[in-house]
């Protein structure tokens, strides 16, 4: 030994024991070494001493020494060579378990030097008469490829694997397929533009391979089935008949006890169902798919959660899938929070006219639980129910009122936000609720809830006697509020002025002045200038813009864009399907990965925006008069309302970037934001310092500025809008 060994301490004692003449003592020492290794202590110094114990009849001791070797082989490559002989010898042992163990461990050593000695034993083991050794050797090829791809190709190991797909033993088939898939994935991952993936590493599933897979599927172990099913999902069927055949052969797997087999089978079916056209067959398949999915909901919470996330995806594609199964998604009091939230989301997806009553009483129950986050989501769900099912809206409002009467602060706040959405969907219904809402004004301390209530007051100002008084409170504390609240206050006060010009004169000039002069948010200032200018130039136009009716909101059927949804359905069971995000967004190596993701998103985004742009254009052409564009402007002004609902439905998911940018309002907003502003701002900025008293700026409506001026303003953006596309 070259380096001076310490004369005392734990390692010294261990070394003594490792070299002991008693077998039990040596073995015990190895166990202690492994224990130290596990907790992260450095025992690499004992390498030669541990190595001495490798030659043994005791299989357990051998395994322990191997475990040690796997850990330190990388740091002690020159010493590993000493072990090679034993490995090669073991790979020839009469006991198949020892042969398999040797080949399994050699592949894990990950030392360059030992790899050269690996080829011969591996070659032998791949042809071993014992299937246990063969299946272990299969995976060893994947390990080798991971370490030194060229070697695996050179020695023809991959070719051999491909032959082994036809092995007589189903487990060997499964592991050969697993190894090939792994190699394929590694090759694709490591491929760059300068060095594309070697063609040998590609695992192409031919119709011949397909036949083998389908045969092995019914006989191999549960984990093997998952591997085979994954391959079946990758296979591109030549025609509809073949797809039908695959579906028929895969359907029995729905009855497997292992949930991952069931989900893998669902994946295969979803992929191959795309090319099916026979309605009755599709219906039959969907009918068979529902029960096993429901069963997954009663599994362990973690598995259950994975299943729920996937069910959520499946429902976006096939809303009819679990039509009559809402009850199984009822939350149990002791479900973990992540399960509850997911169940809630699925229940909303399954809500129909016939089951909405049960759902509502369930949601009301949840809203009285203790977990604040869950209670809020439950309250929100009531609103989503109302928006989704028109006939239930009345009952939903009733439930919300009951919740407001509990006077639990966060429930009230959430209920107010939800009520605003309901007013957006069903304008001029349920006005009777407004007094109750206003009575809770003092309770609100969250910006979103405040903004919602202010919006409601502004919208129904003509019907609320003390509207100016209520809004006055917010105008007084204007600068202390969040921007969201400031924007809403501004709009609501202007609305109030339009509806009741005589009572609101004072408050409107105050708010415009504060907003333009003292507010530090450019958004708030800009909006205030627009209103000011509109009011001073053409009150009729102002009315058309500010009091325009908004398009009703709807509940989004999907949370991910269609293209991504299709991609995710081909990934059922995987992390991607759990996160509802394409895999590239959370895995990927280094910059290349990140770039690819970026590119992909950009591509999709481009596509979606182009689509939306076209729609907007069509809408524009259909417009009968120019004021319809103002409509859009007004909507933009209310974006918080609509955005809030969309945000409620879209979770923090992938594709969110894509989603938000696909919102046509954004595109419009940017167009209007630039063109709309350049024209009118000029005047108010110049005039406001001169006109200290607000009165001259607000000529009363009948006197107003020349009427012809009105259409002239919006006509400009229109030109630009059309010109832009």
């Amino acid at each position, binding site marked *: 030994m070259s380096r001076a060994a310490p004369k005392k301490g734990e390692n010294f004692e261990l070394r003594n024991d490792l070299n002991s003449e008693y077998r039990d003592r040596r073995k015990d020492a190895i166990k202690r070494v492994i224990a130290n290794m596990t*907790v992260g202590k450095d025992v690499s110094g004992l390498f030669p001493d541990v190595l001495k114990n490798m030659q043994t009849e005791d299989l357990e001791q051998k*395994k322990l020494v191997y475990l040690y070797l796997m850990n330190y082989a990388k740091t002690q490559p020159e010493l590993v060579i000493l072990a090679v002989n034993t490995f090669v010898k073991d790979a020839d042992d009469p006991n198949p378990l020892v042969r398999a163990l040797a080949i399994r461990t050699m592949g894990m050593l990950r030392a360059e030097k030992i790899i050269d000695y690996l080829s011969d034993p591996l070659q032998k083991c791949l042809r071993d008469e014992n299937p246990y050794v063969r*299946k272990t050797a299969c995976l060893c090829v994947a390990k080798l490829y991971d370490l030194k791809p060229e070697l695996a190709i050179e020695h023809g190991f991959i070719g051999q694997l491909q032959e082994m797909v036809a092995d007589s033993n189903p487990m060997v088939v499964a592991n050969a397929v697993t190894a090939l898939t792994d190699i394929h994935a590694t090759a694709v991952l490591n491929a760059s533009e300068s060095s594309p993936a070697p063609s040998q590493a590609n695992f192409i599933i031919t119709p011949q391979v397909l036949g083998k897979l389908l045969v092995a599927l019914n006989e191999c172990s549960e984990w093997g089935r998952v591997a085979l099913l994954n391959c079946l999902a990758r296979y591109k069927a030549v025609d509809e008949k073949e797809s039908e055949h695959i579906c028929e052969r895969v359907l029995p797997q729905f009855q497997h006890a292992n949930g991952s087999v069931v989900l893998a089978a669902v994946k295969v079916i979803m992929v191959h169902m795309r090319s099916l056209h026979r309605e009755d067959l599709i219906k039959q398949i969907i009918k068979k798919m529902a029960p096993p999915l*429901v069963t997954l909901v009663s599994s362990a919470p973690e598995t259950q*959660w994975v299943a729920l996330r996937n069910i959520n995806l499946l429902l976006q594609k096939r809303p009819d899938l679990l039509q009559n199964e809402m009850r199984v998604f*009822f939350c149990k009091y002791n479900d973990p929070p992540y399960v509850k939230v997911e169940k809630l989301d699925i229940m909303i997806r399954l809500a129909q006219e016939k089951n909405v009553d049960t759902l509502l009483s369930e949601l009301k129950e949840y809203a009285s639980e203790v977990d604040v986050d869950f209670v809020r989501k439950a309250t929100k769900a009531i609103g989503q129910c109302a928006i989704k099912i028109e006939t239930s809206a009345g009952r939903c409002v009733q439930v919300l009122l009951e919740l407001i009467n509990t006077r639990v602060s966060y429930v009230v706040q959430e209920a107010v936000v939800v009520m605003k959405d309901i007013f957006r969907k069903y304008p001029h219904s349920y006005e009777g609720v407004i007094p109750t809402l206003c009575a809770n004004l003092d309770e609100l301390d969250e910006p979103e809830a405040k903004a919602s209530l202010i919006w409601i007051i502004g919208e129904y100002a003509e019907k609320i006697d003390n509207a100016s008084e209520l809004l006055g409170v917010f105008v007084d504390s204007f600068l202390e509020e969040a921007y969201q609240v400031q924007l809403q206050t501004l709009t609501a006060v202007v609305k109030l002025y339009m509806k009741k010009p005589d009572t609101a004169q004072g408050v409107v000039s105050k708010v415009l002045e504060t907003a333009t002069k003292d507010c530090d948010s450019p958004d708030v200032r800009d909006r205030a200038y627009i209103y000011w200018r509109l009011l001073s130039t053409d009150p009729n136009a102002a009315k058309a813009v500010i009091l325009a009716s908004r398009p009703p909101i709807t509940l989004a059927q999907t949370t991910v864009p269609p293209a991504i949804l299709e991609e995710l359905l081909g990934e059922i069971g995987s*992390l991607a399907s759990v996160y509802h995000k394409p895999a590239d967004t959370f895995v990927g190596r280094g910059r290349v990965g990140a770039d690819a993701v970026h590119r992909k998103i950009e591509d999709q985004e481009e596509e979606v925006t182009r689509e939306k742009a076209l729609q907007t254009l069509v809408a524009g052409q259909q417009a009968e008069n120019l004021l319809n564009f103002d409509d859009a402007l007004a909507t933009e002004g209310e974006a918080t309302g609509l955005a809030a609902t969309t945000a409620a439905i879209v979770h923090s998911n992938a594709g969110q970037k894509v989603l938000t940018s696909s919102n046509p309002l954004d595109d419009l907003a940017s167009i209007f934001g630039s063109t709309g502003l350049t024209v009118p701002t000029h005047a108010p900025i110049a005039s406001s310092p001169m006109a200290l008293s607000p009165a001259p700026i607000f000529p009363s409506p009948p006197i107003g500025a020349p009427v012809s001026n009105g259409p002239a303003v919006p006509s400009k953006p229109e030109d630009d809008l059309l010109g832009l596309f």
Partner: protein
Amino acid sequence: MISGFFIFNQKGEVLISRLYRTDLKRSVADVFRVQVVSNTDVRSPIITLGSTSFFHVRVANVYILAVTKSNANAALVFEFCYRFISIAKSYFGKLDEEAVKNNFVMIYELIDEILDFGYPQNSEIETLKHYITSESVRSEIALRDDSKIAAQTTGSTSWRRTGIRYKKNEAFVDVVEVVHMLMSASGTVLRADVTGQVLMRAYLSGMPECKFGLNDKVVLQNSRRAEGETYEAGTVELEDAQFHQCVRLNMFDTDRSITFIPPDGEFELMRYRAESSVHLPLRVQPIVTEVGKTHVDYTIAIKANFNTKLSATEVVLRIPTPLNTTQVECKSPAGKAKYVPAENVIRWQIPRIQGGSEVTLTATASLTQTTDRKPWQRPPLDVDFQVLMFTASGLLVRYLKVYEKSGYNSVKWVRYLTKANGSYQIRF
């Protein structure tokens, strides 16, 4: 796939750590400690940081953790974690910090056998027990046996070895049903369904071919139709059934017959779910009234709704009390009732309730004054119980046929048990 497998204790100390792939460093363990173990508000069983994903399951006082760097199959990873848990429980009797520390060598041996390069391998408990044993020194005979074991582990009946011999051929079938019930405050049943298991202990010689028959509505209807009768009563409609890998799924798919070559010893043959006509064994009627702000009065009646010859045992009711309860006075003619302050419940334990009988508990909880104006949330009351020789779904085993080349006779036993654990809830 799975790049690393770890076991942590509650303090976040590493008990077991095994890396399967090079894309991971041992230091990921620290990340997990910071992000999950010492984080009080973990809202998901999967956490992804950068491109590393942590899948964790908590059992007793340990965390089982699988780490991946790819778009792994999440369902498979969790199924694997749970499989590991059941293997460990079967080997060591329990899975907690103590068991892991005492058996860490064996655990390393096990996880190396069931996970190779991050891909799960054979994980049948009965098979594993043949060649991963606690007896360390192996005899010559054992070594000769190894070839057989190796062949069997990978064979098409990987779950059964050849040459098993018993003097007396016996098979025990246990049908265990768990009732899930949720009743609203107004007494309507919101949800009632049954998840059942058919557990089998097979002590049969050779390679027996088994055929198992239930009073499955679909099967009976088909056969009766062939005989020209219609027959409805006494059948059970299964929503879904899931089988052990020994059962030939394609056969079940074609004619719903359950045929298999069983593993030796104990295994779960089948799992099923039934929703229609679930017979609820216990009816609980709680009357809970809040008297002013100082007292809550309870009258809880529980009635056994089944044949008088049977009885429910180990009945435990957990009746929630408000958080500001100081003491509870209970009166009951049967069983013991006691206030458990740590859980905010009255625990009412009744060793036995005969079918058809009814018992009532009256209790009064005294409350302290609080400034909290929030009303009491009233979590649901839950009941645990066991009823022997009763199935809530009405499922019956019609036959279990065993065919073996040697043509021996076998004795079969069937037991039924219906129970609830935390799944029988009543709102009030």
